[in-house]
C-alpha cells in the first residue's frame, strides 16, 4: 500500500501527511463516541429491585470479609486513616446502611448481616468513647474551639444515630434503644439551638451532608419509639429552604458557618447524599434538589457519566471531599461517587448506567474469587457504591411506617 506503483512517483509528502491526519481524525471521531459501549454493564448486574444484584453481592462479600477478618480490616483502615480519618468513619456508616437494606431484602441472611452491623456499631461506639470525637475528625478540628459547647460533632452524632436507627429498623435490639434515644435527644437539642437549626461538624463549620443525615436519623427514630419530632423537622426544613439555599442554583449550600453564612456553595460531594437523606423526611423537596443537581452537576461525556463538584455559577477549591477536580470538565471523583446514591435513590436509570460505565472505564475493577473492589478507590468509596446499589428497602420501610402513623 505504501509502495508506489512501478514507474509512478510516491505521493508528495504533504499529501501523505494530510491523509494521515484526516485518517486519525476520522478514526477518533468514530472510536471516542463508541468507547462507552465497551464498558457499559447490564444494569441488572449491579442493581435489581427487591434483590441484591450479582456485582453488589461481590462488593458486599469483600466488605464482609474485611469485617470478619481483623487483620485485613486493620490494613485497609490504616490506608484510609493515613489520608483522612473521616473515611474510616463514613466507610462504617455506609456499610451499615448497605447491610440494613440487604437484611430487609434477604431475611434469611439477616442474622449474619446484623452480627456485622453490631460489630461495627460496638467498635465505633467504643472508639468514640475511648478516643473522643477527634478520633474520627480531621486534624483541623483541634485548631479552634467549637462554638456550641461542650464540643460535639454533628458529623459523628448524626451518623452514629443513623447507624443505630437503621439497625433498629431491621430488627430492634433492646441494647441499642437507650443509645439511639440519647443520641437523638442530643441532636435535637443542639440543632434546635443553632441560629439556622444546624449543628457544627467542625468548629464554626456546619455541613448540609451531616445535618440531613441527622434529621433523617431523628425521623427514623420517631418511627421506632413513637416519639414525635415532626414540628422540629418541619421547622428545620423551613429554615433550610429559606436560609440555606443558593439563590442562583436553587441547591442547598454544602457548608456554612454556625450562624448560616455560606462557606462553600452547592457541592457534588454533598448534595447527592443530602437529597438521598431528605427523601425520607420531605420527598418533594428531595426530588426537587435531585432534579436541580442532575441539571447542574450531572454530566455525560461520550456516554460516560460523571458529576461536577461545582455548578457552573460557583468557583470553589478542591478539598478532601471532592478530590482533585479535573479542569474544564469539573469532574470530581468524590462527587461522582456520591452521584451513584442520588441516581439510585431517584431511580434515574439512564444516569446510573452512565455512571456505571465510567466506573468500569476508569475505576479499575478487580475481581478476586467472589469479591469485587475498585482499585482506584478505597473502602469508603466501595461502601458508598454498595449502599447506592442496594438502597431502597430501608427508605421504603420508613415510608410505610410514616404512612401508618
Amino acid at each position, binding site marked *: 500500500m505504501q509502495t508506489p506503483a512501478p514507474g509512478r512517483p510516491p505521493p508528495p509528502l504533504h499529501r501523505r501527511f494530510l491523509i494521515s491526519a484526516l*485518517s486519525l481524525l476520522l*478514526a477518533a471521531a468514530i472510536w471516542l463516541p463508541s468507547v462507552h459501549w465497551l464498558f457499559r454493564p447490564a444494569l441488572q448486574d449491579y442493581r435489581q429491585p427487591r434483590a441484591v444484584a450479582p456485582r453488589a453481592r461481590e462488593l458486599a462479600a469483600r466488605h464482609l470479609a474485611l469485617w470478619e477478618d481483623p487483620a485485613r480490616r486493620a490494613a485497609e483502615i490504616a490506608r484510609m486513616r493515613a489520608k483522612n480519618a473521616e473515611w474510616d468513619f463514613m466507610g462504617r456508616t455506609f456499610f451499615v446502611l448497605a447491610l440494613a437494606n440487604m437484611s430487609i431484602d434477604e431475611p434469611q441472611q439477616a442474622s449474619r448481616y446484623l452480627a456485622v452491623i453490631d460489630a461495627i456499631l460496638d467498635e465505633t461506639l467504643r472508639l468514640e468513647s475511648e478516643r473522643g470525637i477527634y478520633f474520627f475528625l480531621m486534624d483541623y478540628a483541634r485548631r479552634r474551639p467549637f462554638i456550641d459547647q461542650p464540643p460535639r460533632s454533628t458529623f459523628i452524632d448524626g451518623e452514629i444515630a443513623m447507624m443505630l436507627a437503621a439497625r433498629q429498623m431491621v430488627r430492634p435490639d433492646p441494647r441499642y434503644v437507650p443509645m439511639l434515644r440519647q443520641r437523638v435527644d442530643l441532636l435535637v437539642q443542639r440543632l434546635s439551638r443553632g441560629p439556622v437549626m444546624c449543628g457544627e461538624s467542625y468548629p464554626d463549620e456546619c455541613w448540609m451532608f451531616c445535618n440531613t443525615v441527622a434529621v433523617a436519623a431523628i425521623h427514623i427514630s420517631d418511627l421506632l419509639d413513637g416519639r414525635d419530632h415532626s414540628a422540629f423537622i418541619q421547622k428545620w426544613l423551613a429554615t433550610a429552604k429559606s436560609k440555606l439555599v443558593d439563590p442562583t442554583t436553587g441547591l442547598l449550600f454544602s457548608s456554612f458557618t454556625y450562624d448560616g453564612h455560606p462557606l462553600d456553595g452547592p457541592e457534588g460531594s454533598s448534595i447527592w447524599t443530602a437529597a438521598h437523606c431528605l427523601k425520607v423526611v420531605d420527598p418533594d423537596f428531595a426530588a426537587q434538589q435531585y432534579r436541580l443537581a442532575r441539571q447542574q452537576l450531572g454530566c455525560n461525556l461520550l456516554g460516560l457519566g460523571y458529576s461536577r463538584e461545582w455548578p457552573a455559577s460557583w468557583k470553589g477549591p478542591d478539598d478532601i471531599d471532592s478530590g482533585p477536580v479535573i479542569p474544564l470538565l469539573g469532574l470530581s471523583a468524590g462527587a461522582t461517587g456520591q452521584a451513584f446514591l442520588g441516581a439510585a435513590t431517584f431511580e434515574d436509570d439512564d444516569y446510573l448506567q452512565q455512571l456505571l460505565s465510567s466506573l468500569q472505564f476508569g475505576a479499575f475493577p478487580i475481581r478476586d474469587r467472589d469479591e469485587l473492589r475498585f482499585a482506584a478507590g478505597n473502602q469508603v468509596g466501595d461502601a458508598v457504591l454498595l449502599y447506592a446499589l442496594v438502597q431502597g428497602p430501608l427508605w421504603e420501610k420508613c415510608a410505610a411506617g410514616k404512612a401508618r402513623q
Partner: protein
Amino acid sequence: MTAHLQSRLRRPAWRIFTRPLGWVGCAVGLVVILGLFHLLGWRDDTSFISGTTPASNTNATILRGMLYTLAWFSAILISPILILASGIRWLLHWLLQKLLRARSFRQVGLKTGHSNPLV
C-alpha cells in the same frame, strides 16, 4: 509547504505518523505495555487516584499507579484509534489513487480527442 517543513516531515519521528504499519505497531506496543504492567500487578497501585496509598514506599506506588493509568488509557483510547486510522488511511489512499488515475486518463483523452486514452 516550506522546504523546512518538508525536511522535518522526512525525519523518522514524523514518518511514523504517515505509515499505517507504524500505527499498528504503536497500537500493539501500547497493549503489550499495558499487559506487562497488569502482569506486574500495578493495577492495584491506581489507588493513588483516591489518595489511598500504603504508608511505606509511597512514591514508588504512586509512580507505578500513574504508569498503569497512562498505559490503560493509551491502550483503551489510542490503540483502537491507530488501528482504525490505518484502515481509513489505506481506504483514502486507494480512493485518491483511483481519482488521480481517472483524472490523468481524462486529461490524456482530452488531448488526443479520445475518451479512452488507451485507444
